[in-house]
C-alpha cells in the first residue's frame, strides 16, 4: 500500500515538473560514473580472464640473459610446454628504405595460449595461423608493409640476413596494445636470430621463457623459480600479467574517475538545491497530510520510498546512458588492452545504481525527512514550520556518501582520501575565489542604476547560490580549457622550445669496433660529427651491502629500476644540460675510480644519498661505485642523458656499446639507409616518431577525459537550473510586482540576462584563472619551461562562460518572463 501510494504521489509530483532537475542530475551523475566504470571493468576483465592470451602463456619469465638449461629442465619435469623468446628493437631494410621495428623471435611452439591471427593481404579478414613460420620467413605488422611498400613474398633485411614476408600479423598474443608500441613488430623463428648477427655484447635484448600447462604444475614451476630467486628475472603470471597495461589502466581509471566524480559532486549540489526547494514546496503538503491523518512515520516512509523509487529509476536510466556512452571511451582508449574486450559485467551496473541512489538519498533525504516535523498547525498559521533546510549538517550525509563513493571508485583508501582532500581543497579554493570576485563586484552594485546592473545586484543578494553556480561552471570551464586549449598550447610550446638543430635521431647498439667507421661515414656524408657515448648495461644488485630486490620497494618506479638493466656511461666532465644538485664532480687527482654520479629520480626512488655504495652487475661481473654527486637532468634536451655516470676507468673492461644523438636534415635521409645497410646491427630511433606517438596518446587520453568532462558540464547546467528553480518563486513575484508597477518586459529581460551574463562571466573568469595556474604548474614542473600567458584562453573562458550560462539561464527561466503578472499575484494571494 505504501509503495503504491508513493508511486502515485511520485507520478503527481513528476507532472508538476519539480522533479525533473533532481531526476536529470542523477541520470548525468550515474551516466558519467558508469561510463567510466563500464570501460575500466571491461579492460580489467580482459586483464583477468584473457591474461594468458595477453601473455601468450600461463607464466612468462623475462630477463636480460638467455635462460639457463635449469629452467627448461624444470619445465620439462613438470610436464610444461615452453617457448624460447628473444625480443629487441632493430632496423629493417627493404626497397632502400629503413624502419625501426620490434623483433619478437620465438620458437615453433608459440603461442602457448591464444592464437596468432594473420592475413595474406592488407586489411583483409584475419585467419588463425595454423602452423608456425618456416625458417627464413617472417610475419610483419601492417605498418611495415605499408611504410616500406612491401607485399607478401617480398624480401626484407634484418641484420645480416634476408627474410621473406610470409604474412601480415593481425593478432599477436603477448603483444601490448597500440598504446605501448613505438615500433611495429616482426615475428621470426628464434633459431634465425644468430644468422642476423644482431645480438652483440651490450645489446638491448630481452630474453623470455614462456611456459604453459596444468595449473598446479605451473604453480609448482613458479615456486621453483621463486625459490631460486635469480637476480634480474621477472616472473609474470596470469594475476600479474602486463604491469605496464595495469599501470596505464590505473592511471586512466584515476583521470577518468576524477572527471566522473566531478560530475557526481556537481550533481550532488544540484540534488541538494532541488531537494531544498522540494522540501519548501512541500511544507503545506505535509501539514495537510498531517491534518487529515498522516502520522510522522507514514510521512517519513512515504518520502523515503519516493526517493528510493526515483533514485532507482534515474540511476537505471543513468546506467543505460552510461553503457552507450562508454562505447566512445572504448573507441578512444580500447586499444590499451591489446585484446578484444569482453562484454561488461554486472559490477558497473551495481556501482551505478548504488551511486545514484546514494547521492539522491544522501543529499535529498535530510531536508526531505525534515518534512515530517512540519507542524499540522501550519494549516491555520502559515508562518509555522518554515525550516532552514540548508545547514551544513544536513549535507554531511551527502558529503559522506560522496566520500565513500570516491574511495570505492579509487579502489584504494589512501588514493581515495587524497582525491577527497584534493577535491575539497579545489572546491574551497574555487569557492573562495568566487566569493571574493562576487564581493568585489558587489562593491559597485549601487554605482549603476540601469537594468543591466540589476542582474548584478541579484547575484550579490544571493551569495551562496551564486557562488555554488559560479564554482559549478568554473570547474567545467576550467577542465575544458585545460584539456583543449592548454593541452595543445603546452605541447606546441614545448616542441618549439626544442632547438631547431636538436638531435632528431638516436643511433644505438653501436659496437665499439664500429665507432670509427661510423664516424667516417658521418664525415663522408658531410654531416656534423656527433658525440658518441659509451653505454654499459648494468643492474643494481646491492645498496650499502644490502640486497636490492624489487620486492623490498613499494614504489613502482623503484621496482622498475631494479628489475631491469640501467644504461650507464662515463664522463670526464659534467655533461651539457646536467646540473649538479648535490655532492661534487670527481677530479683527476684522486686516484680512486669507484665514484658514480646519479640522476635525481634514481636517488629519490631508490633512497640513495651521497656516500651510499651501489653494487652493479654486468653480465656475470660485478663492480661498485660510491655516490659522489646527484644530478638534475633536462630530459627534454634530447641529448644523451644517463641515470648513472661513472668516473672514467671504472667501467673499463665491461662490454659496452655506443650511442649517438644527431641532427639529420630530412634532405639527407638516404644517409640512414647507408648507415643501416653498412651496419645492420645498429638501431636508429626517430625522435619525431616517438614524439608523435606520445602526442597521439596524450590526444587520445585527453579526448577521453574531455568527453567525461562533458558530463561535468551537463551537471553544471543542472546546478544552474536547480539554482534558478530554487529562486523561481522569488523571481516570479519580483517580476510580477515590477511589471505591475510599470516595469517593461524588456527591462525584466535585461535584468535577467545581465544576471546570467555576470554569472557566466565570473565562472569563465574563475575557469580561466585556475586553468592558467594549472598550466603554469605543468609548464614549470613537468615541462620545465617558463609559463606563458595565453590570451585566447581568457577570451574563450569568458566567452564560453557568459554565452553558455546566459543561453541556459534564459531558457531555464523563460516561464518567469512569459507568465502574466496577475497569474503570479493571484497564486501568491491564494497560498498566503
Amino acid at each position, binding site marked *: 500500500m505504501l509503495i503504491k501510494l508513493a508511486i502515485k504521489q511520485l507520478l503527481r509530483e513528476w*507532472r508538476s515538473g519539480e522533479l525533473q532537475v533532481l531526476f536529470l542530475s542523477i541520470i548525468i551523475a550515474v551516466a558519467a560514473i558508469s561510463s567510466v566504470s563500464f570501460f575500466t571493468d571491461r579492460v580489467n576483465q580482459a586483464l583477468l580472464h584473457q591474461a594468458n592470451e595477453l601473455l601468450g602463456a600461463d607464466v612468462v619469465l623475462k630477463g636480460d640473459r638467455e635462460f639457463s638449461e635449469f629452467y627448461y629442465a624444470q619445465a620439462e619435469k613438470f610436464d610444461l610446454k615452453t617457448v624460447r623468446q628473444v625480443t629487441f628493437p632493430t632496423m629493417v631494410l627493404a626497397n632502400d628504405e629503413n624502419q625501426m621495428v620490434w623483433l619478437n623471435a620465438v620458437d615453433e611452439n608459440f603461442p602457448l595460449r591464444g592464437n596468432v591471427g594473420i592475413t595474406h593481404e592488407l586489411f583483409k579478414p584475419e585467419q588463425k595461423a595454423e602452423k608456425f613460420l618456416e625458417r627464413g620467413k617472417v610475419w610483419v605488422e601492417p605498418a611495415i608493409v605499408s611504410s616500406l611498400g612491401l607485399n607478401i613474398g617480398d624480401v626484407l633485411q634484418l641484420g645480416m640476413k634476408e627474410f621473406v614476408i610470409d604474412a601480415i600479423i593481425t593478432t599477436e598474443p603477448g603483444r601490448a596494445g597500440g598504446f605501448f608500441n613505438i615500433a611495429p613488430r616482426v615475428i621470426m623463428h628464434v633459431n634465425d636470430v644468430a644468422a642476423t648477427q644482431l645480438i652483440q655484447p651490450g645489446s638491448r635484448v630481452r630474453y623470455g621463457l614462456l611456459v604453459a600447462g596444468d595449473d598446479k604444475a605451473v604453480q609448482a614451476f613458479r615456486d621453483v623459480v621463486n625459490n631460486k630467486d635469480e637476480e634480474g628475472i621477472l616472473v609474470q603470471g596470469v594475476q600479474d600479467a602486463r604491469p605496464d597495461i595495469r599501470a596505464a589502466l590505473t592511471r586512466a581509471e584515476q583521470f577518468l574517475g576524477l572527471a566522473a566524480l566531478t560530475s557526481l559532486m556537481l550533481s550532488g549540489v544540484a540534488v541538494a538545491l532541488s531537494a531544498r526547494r522540494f522540501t519548501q514546496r512541500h511544507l503545506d503538503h505535509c501539514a*495537510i497530510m498531517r491534518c*487529515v*491523518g498522516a*502520522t*510522522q512515520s507514514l510521512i517519513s516512509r512515504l518520502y523515503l520510498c519516493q526517493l528510493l523509487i526515483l533514485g532507482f529509476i534515474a540511476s537505471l536510466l543513468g546506467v543505460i546512458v552510461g553503457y552507450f556512452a562508454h562505447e566512445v571511451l572504448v573507441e578512444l582508449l580500447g586499444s590499451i588492452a591489446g585484446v578484444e574486450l569482453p562484454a561488461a559485467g554486472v559490477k558497473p551496473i551495481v556501482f551505478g545504481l548504488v551511486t545514484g541512489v546514494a547521492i539522491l538519498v544522501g543529499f535529498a533525504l535530510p531536508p526531505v525527512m525534515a518534512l515530517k516535523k512540519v507542524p*499540522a498547525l501550519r494549516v*491555520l498559521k502559515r508562518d509555522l514550520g518554515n525550516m532552514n533546510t540548508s545547514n551544513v549538517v544536513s549535507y554531511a550525509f551527502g558529503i559522506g556518501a560522496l566520500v565513500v563513493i570516491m574511495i570505492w571508485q579509487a579502489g584504494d583508501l589512501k588514493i581515495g582520501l587524497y582525491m577527497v582532500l584534493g577535491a575539497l581543497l579545489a572546491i574551497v579554493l574555487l569557492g573562495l575565489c568566487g566569493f571574493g570576485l562576487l564581493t568585489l563586484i558587489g562593491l559597485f552594485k549601487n554605482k549603476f542604476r540601469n537594468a543591466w546592473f540589476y542582474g548584478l545586484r541579484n547575484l550579490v543578494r544571493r551569495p551562496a547560490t551564486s557562488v555554488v553556480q559560479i564554482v559549478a561552471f568554473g570547474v567545467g570551464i576550467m577542465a575544458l580549457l585545460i584539456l583543449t586549449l592548454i593541452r595543445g598550447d603546452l605541447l606546441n610550446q614545448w616542441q618549439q622550445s626544442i632547438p631547431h638543430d636538436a638531435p632528431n635521431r638516436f643511433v644505438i647498439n653501436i659496437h665499439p669496433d664500429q665507432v670509427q667507421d661510423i664516424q667516417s661515414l658521418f664525415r663522408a656524408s658531410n654531416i656534423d660529427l656527433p658525440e658518441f657515448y659509451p653505454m654499459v648495461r648494468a643492474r643494481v644488485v646491492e645498496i650499502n651491502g644490502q640486497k636490492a630486490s624489487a620486492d623490498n620497494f613499494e614504489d613502482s618506479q623503484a621496482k622498475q629500476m631494479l628489475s631491469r638493466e640501467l644504461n650507464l656511461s662515463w664522463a670526464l666532465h659534467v655533461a651539457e644540460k646536467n646540473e649538479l644538485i648535490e655532492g661534487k664532480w670527481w677530479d683527476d687527482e684522486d686516484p680512486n675510480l669507484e665514484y658514480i654520479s646519479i640522476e635525481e629520480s634514481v636517488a629519490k626512488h631508490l633512497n640513495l644519498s651521497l656516500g651510499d655504495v651501489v653494487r652493479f652487475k654486468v653480465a656475470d661481473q660485478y663492480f661498485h661505485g660510491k655516490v659522489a654527486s646527484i644530478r638534475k637532468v633536462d630530459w627534454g634536451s634530447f641529448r644523451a642523458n644517463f641515470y648513472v655516470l661513472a668516473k672514467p676507468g671504472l667501467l673499463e673492461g665491461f662490454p659496452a656499446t655506443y650511442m649517438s644523438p644527431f641532427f639529420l636534415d630530412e634532405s639527407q635521409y638516404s644517409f640512414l639507409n647507408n648507415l643501416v645497410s653498412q651496419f645492420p646491427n645498429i638501431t636508429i630511433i626517430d625522435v619525431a616518431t616517438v614524439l608523435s606517438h606520445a602526442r597521439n596518446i596524450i590526444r587520445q587520453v585527453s579526448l577521453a577525459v574531455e568527453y567525461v568532462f562533458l558530463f561535468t558540464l551537463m551537471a553544471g547546467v543542472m546546478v544552474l537550473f536547480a539554482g534558478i528553480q530554487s529562486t523561481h518563486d522569488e523571481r516570479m513575484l519580483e517580476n510580477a510586482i515590477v511589471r505591475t508597477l510599470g516595469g517593461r518586459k524588456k527591462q525584466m529581460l535585461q535584468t535577467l540576462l545581465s544576471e546570467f551574463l555576470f554569472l557566466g562571466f565570473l565562472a569563465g573568469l574563475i575557469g580561466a584563472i585556475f586553468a592558467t595556474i594549472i598550466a603554469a604548474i605543468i609548464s614549470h614542473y613537468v615541462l620545465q619551461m617558463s609559463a606563458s600567458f595565453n590570451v585566447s584562453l581568457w577570451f574563450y573562458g569568458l566567452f564560453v562562460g557568459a554565452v553558455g550560462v546566459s543561453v541556459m539561464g534564459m531558457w531555464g527561466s523563460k516561464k518567469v518572463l512569459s507568465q502574466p503578472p496577475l497569474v503570479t499575484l493571484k497564486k501568491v494571494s*491564494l497560498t498566503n
Partner: protein
Amino acid sequence: MTETKSNPLLVVNKLNKKVASPTGELVLLEDIDFTIYSSESVAIIGPSGAGKSTLLGILAGLDLPSNGEVILEEENIFNMDEDGRAQLRGRMMGFVFQSFQLLPSLTALENVMLPLELLALNDQRETAKQVLERVGLLDRAGHYPRQLSGGEQQRVAIARAFAVKPKILLADEPTGNLDKKTGEKIIELLFSLNEEENTTLLLVTHDTYLADRCQRQFHIDGGCLTELNHAN
C-alpha cells in the same frame, strides 16, 4: 443550554493556553468549558485576535493546550501522542479552511482522494468522484486549483473534508476569502451536506450570517468563551 440531545461528542474541560511573550505571559485561552453533542452545528464567533483559531487548533489536536482536556468520544486527545492524534483526525475529523489549503500540484479529484489514500480506504477514486459530484464539480475533476475560482476551490475543500465521512467537521472562516454571494452558496452546501451526513459541525467565523445558521453560538473574546442564548 439544551442538553436533551444524544451523547456528548466533544467535551472541553478547563482549557487554557498561555504563551510567553517579551512583555510577560500572554493568555490566549482561559478556562474554557463546553460540550458539543452529535449532529449539532456550533459557531464560535469573535473579533480578530480573540483566540478563535487557537481554540480550533487545539480542539483538532493540531496544537497543545497549557492545561485542560479535550475529550472526543470519551477519549482525551492529549493522552495520545502526536501520531495518535493524526490518526484520530484522519478517522473522525474533516477540515475546511479560509485559504482552502488545496495542494496546487494535485487535480481537484486528487485533492479529494488524498485523505482516502492516507487511510488506505477502498474505492478511493469512486468515492472521491461521488463527493465531487455532490459539490457539483465532477466536470472539473481534472482541473488544478489554479484553474478553479475561489468558490470552486472551497467546494473541492468541502468535498475533501466530507470524503472520509467525518464525525465532526471543523471549519475556520470558510467564507472568509469569498465574496458574499459565493460565500452564501458555500454555506448552503456546507449545511446541506452536514445534514445529509449527520455530521457535527464546529465552525469559527466572524460572519454573523453564517453563525446564525448554527444551532448554537459561542462568543470568544480575550480568550474567554461564553455561550450565547440563541433561540434558533
